[in-house]
């Protein structure tokens, strides 16, 4: 057989026509199939981030289904008799014991549990990276503002889903997380006490109903909601097509790129496989959340240096940074302290994210439909304001690791927290000014800092002075030279 294009004998129907006919006779779908095969994807590496999130979700559902076949969601007492010797004879909950059995005694159980956990971390990380890409290229503008809103909701649900999953094994870390969640629920102004009692079925650590609720939430309600919203999100993408960066032949009216069949389909399936490869390698080779080392949870136990999954770090940071302010008068406590860091802060962040398309419309006074992306430098104000906002969130996030810094480097937590309390006001201003300046400089010089050196050089002359050497456009290297 030659490597030439497939030969088609005159008159003979192309292979596969019978299948298409079979579908067509039942669904009339061949025009839609034809359109789907020719659906055009603009090409840019940053458009892959959302796909990675999607594929991580696929792996979460697959591995999670396996875990659900073994996990027992119950805080009923049991005595451990499994193969992990250091805990032999310990009293613990069924939830903890079944997670131990899954990790230590079920063949392949630990691989799938660890892969599930890694996939959760990658899922949220990919969503955040995707969100930043969409923000800084202004892909959230009309007609994609609703798609953006669905995406922000997906991020919120993903964080909740991750927290619920991490809370289920009833190990020391998950218990500490739930205790804080209870404290935050109690702190909601006025309704807090009853809200917490409705969620936990009574005073913390709650009744047996609570573990059932956690399971229902984690394996049914939230995944179903996430899947539904992913469907809406993708429907929004398909209806409006991807955005594209400006370039030769690219306009507001068209979309230029690779059609789905065959090249793009193969490459995106390659990305699915690569995501699976990375997650299974992480799940097999890099230990995560070894709950047998944390031990079972009791409300009177806690440990220092305990870090939750990364996507909760900003909440820990928010709770830690808040000074001891509690609003109480007339004998009632109207705003308990955890409200500020645990409820107000995340609500403010999400409210800002939701408001971004509308804020942008107000600030730019631009209500037009946009299919061509901005580069971050094209709108310095947006990019700089975004950097200020995200650097603020990132700082609070890093303040969440004060305990690790204390343990690793011995820096007292008071100094770290006082530093962060000041930095959250100063750093966003610096980030704003610096970004604005960099964007304007890039606009002026039209340089690509990632593609090649284009700045001026300062050279020391023989006489001992300094001279500025302007780069000659003709000999300017396009790529960094191997210096």
């Amino acid at each position: 057989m030659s490597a030439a294009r497939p030969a088609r004998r005159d008159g003979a129907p192309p292979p596969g026509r019978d299948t298409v006919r079979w579908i067509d006779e039942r669904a009339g779908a061949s025009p839609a199939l034809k359109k789907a095969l020719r659906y055009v994807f603009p090409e840019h590496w940053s458009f892959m981030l959302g796909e990675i999130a999607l594929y991580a979700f696929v792996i979460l559902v697959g591995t999670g289904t396996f875990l659900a076949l073994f996990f027992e969601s119950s805080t009923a007492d049991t005595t451990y008799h499994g193969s992990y010797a250091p805990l032999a004879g310990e009293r613990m909950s069924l939830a903890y014991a079944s997670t131990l059995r899954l990790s230590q005694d079920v063949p392949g159980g630990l691989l799938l549990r660890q892969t599930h956990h890694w996939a959760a971390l990658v899922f949220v990380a990919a969503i955040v990276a995707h969100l930043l890409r969409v923000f800084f290229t202004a892909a959230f503008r009309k007609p994609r503002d609703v798609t953006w809103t669905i995406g922000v909701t997906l991020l919120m649900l993903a964080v909740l889903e991750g927290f619920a999953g991490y809370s289920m094994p009833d190990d020391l870390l998950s218990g500490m997380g739930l205790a804080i969640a209870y404290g935050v629920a109690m702190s909601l102004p006025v309704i807090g006490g009853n809200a917490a009692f409705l969620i936990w079925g009574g005073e913390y650590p709650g009744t047996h109903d609570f573990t059932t609720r956690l399971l229902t939430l984690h394996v049914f309600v939230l995944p179903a909601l996430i899947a539904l919203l992913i469907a809406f999100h993708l429907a929004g993408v398909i209806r409006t097509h991807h955005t594209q960066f400006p370039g030769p032949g690219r306009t507001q009216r068209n979309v230029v790129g690779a059609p789905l069949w065959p090249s793009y389909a193969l490459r995106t399936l390659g990305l699915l496989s690569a995501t699976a490869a990375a997650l299974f390698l992480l799940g097999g080779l890099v230990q995560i959340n070894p709950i047998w080392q944390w031990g079972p949870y009791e409300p009177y136990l806690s440990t220092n240096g305990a870090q939750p999954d990364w996507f909760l770090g900003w909440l820990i940071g928010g709770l830690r940074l808040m000074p001891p302010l509690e609003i109480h008068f007339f004998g009632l406590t109207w705003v308990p302290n955890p409200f500020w860091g645990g409820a107000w802060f995340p609500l403010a962040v999400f409210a800002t994210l939701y408001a971004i398309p509308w804020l942008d419309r107000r600030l730019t006074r631009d209500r037009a439909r946009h299919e061509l992306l901005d580069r971050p430098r094209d709108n310095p104000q947006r990019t700089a304001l975004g950097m200020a906002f995200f650097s603020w969130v990132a700082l609070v996030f890093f303040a969440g690791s004060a305990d690790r810094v204390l343990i690793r480097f011995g820096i007292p937590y008071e100094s770290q927290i006082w530093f962060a309390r000041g930095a959250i006001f100063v750093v966003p201003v610096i980030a704003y000014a610096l970004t604005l300046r960099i964007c304007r400089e890039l606009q002026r010089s039209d340089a690509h800092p990632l593609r090649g050196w284009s700045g001026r050089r300062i050279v020391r002359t023989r006489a001992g002075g300094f001279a500025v050497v302007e780069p000659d456009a003709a000999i300017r290297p396009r790529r960094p030279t191997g210096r």
Partner: protein
Amino acid sequence: MSGWRVIVAAILLWLRGDRRNPQPPEPVDPRERRVPFNARAQLLVAALLALAGLAGFAFATLYLISPAHETQWLGLALGVAFALLAAALIVAGKAIVPQEVAVEERSQLVHEQAEQEVPQLIAEGAEGVTRRGLLASGAAVAGLGVGAALVAPAASLGPNVSRRIDDTPWRRGVRVVDERGRPLRADDVEQGTFVTGFPEGASLRDLAAPIVIVRLPPSTIHLPDGRDPADWAPEGLLAYSKICTHAGCAIGLYRYPSFRATQQRPALVCPCHYSTFDPARGADVIFGPAGRPLPQLPLMIDPSTRELRANGGYSASIGPSWLNVDRGGA
């Protein structure tokens, strides 16, 4: 010109930078189609696919046959299988199949004709309706009532908070025991250590149960007004609720100076958000986010057995604050 004006002007200039208008795009037809005819790439993809299959078989074999079920080998085999598959698909996508840049026209989103017809169609549905206000009020009542009926079952999720939350198992005379139920004696608590105690016979999972007990030199103790050290801190023994008044974590850390001249006072510290309490002063908040002190439990020492007993209930509500929390005068 004064110095600060120069600085402000310089900052403004620096911030403003320069602007340049982007050039208008030239009309170009970007369409192209290239068929690679790459025999070596086809060989490579076939080899990668075969290797991916081999790695997959290796995983299955290892899973079914190996008695040890080594997580690392399993993860490596499955990860390598997918990595090879990914490599095969990407090489195939980039070097075997036709490479095409296509142009698709975006669909029209705005349909002016239909936009006018839709509201018209909806309005036509109300043709012949004369008592709109009445019907709307009826619908509102129905909506509210049925909505309330659908939401009401949520009330069975949990009890009313105020009836239960301030019950504690601590009463005057209840013995203090450790987590295995053994009575704690006054001499079990030394200076510089901290001991977790529970009320005898209570559930360890009850938030009101755990207390931390520390011993401080009586001369350093300054309790709030109304707490007589004889009733609240016999022999310098102090007991506080172990549940942080910030977010409900257990107070797991006791910061005790090893060199009093330069180090900070003894403090009870919650590892979750670093609320820091001064046990010598009624567990006042000296750092961190907690909005009120830890509730104190008065202690007494049994004169004959030296066992610790509660000398009453807590000085305030235990656990995280909420609307009706008893702040104990703090």
